[in-house]
């Protein structure tokens, strides 16, 4: 249930950047490897953003899948949760190359 703290952090950032304008949408970018943030964030948002300029804001999640790159053959792939082997050459010499995002990307204001 870390979603409540996460929601509070998002709200603080958003209000700071909105500069007294009404917020319509918050655009979040969440990588698969960064954190589990589910739809309960919107639920918490509707509670804690009440009586702020962000009260009616919708949260938009852009989900970035986890990405790995094979050091052996250069293949780029999205790993499953069973193994991290390269699907092209079956090498285990792979490295994380994407999916760490965890940010407020932008806000839409009136």
């Amino acid at each position: 249930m870390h979603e409540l703290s996460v929601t509070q952090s998002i709200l603080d950032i958003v209000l700071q950047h909105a500069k007294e304008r009404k917020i319509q949408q918050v655009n979040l970018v969440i990588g698969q490897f960064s954190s589990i943030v589910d739809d309960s964030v919107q639920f918490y948002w509707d509670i804690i953003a009440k009586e702020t300029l962000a009260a009616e804001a919708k949260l938009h999640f852009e989900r970035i899948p986890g990405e790995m790159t094979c050091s052996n053959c250069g293949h780029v792939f999205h790993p499953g949760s069973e193994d991290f082997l390269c699907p092209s050459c079956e090498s285990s010499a792979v490295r994380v190359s994407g999916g760490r995002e965890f940010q407020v990307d932008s806000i839409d204001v009136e």
Partner: protein
Amino acid sequence: MCDGHNHTHSHTTTRVPVVENILSANDRIAQRNHSLLHQKNVYGVNIMASPGAGKTSVLLKTLEALKGRLRIGVIEGDPAGSIDTDRALAAGMPAVQVNTGGECHLDAVMMEDALSQLPLDDLDLVVVENVGNLICPANFRLGTHLNLVIASIPEGDDKPYKYPGMYMGMQALIINKIDLLPYVPFDMEYFQQGVEVLNPGIATFPLSCQTGEGLDAWTDWLVEQAHAEIIPE
């Protein structure tokens, strides 16, 4: 893609770029905690694990082994942790119990408050027992030098694949309960392969708090790390 303005709404909508890490406020306080530890010449360790992995056992064995080598303070964040802060205090070891208010993790603010209650001038090492949980604590940096994850044999060999975030954010890994290897299906090679992908070259310590096997390697390494970081020649 949006070019900065969205013309389809009846009201004028402006897209304001933010590009800020969601937990940047926590990270800033964590950085402050780190600076304080550095200034006070104290090495900080944050222990994270799932419930039952043996955080408390490892902590107790570690404290025992370091007695007389480093002056240690304890921050107890796990409501289920069994380090009795009164008992630790009675043994001359400063300890602080953090009330997480039902949260699934410690955060940098709780850490800052706990640090303010410890006599940092008289310590070399602060060990934090985080809340038992493999998801949340990874995101909330505390400002310690070392983030330690404790895995254990009975949990299964698939944990790095199921909780990549936790395994990517650590600087050391203990694999606890290796005395159970003959009795539990656990493919060490499969486990370590996942770890190596997520965290290449990570310092790994297979050990057993039950038999004591592997404990010296861990505690010697920890003392070495602490000395390298904090104690001036």
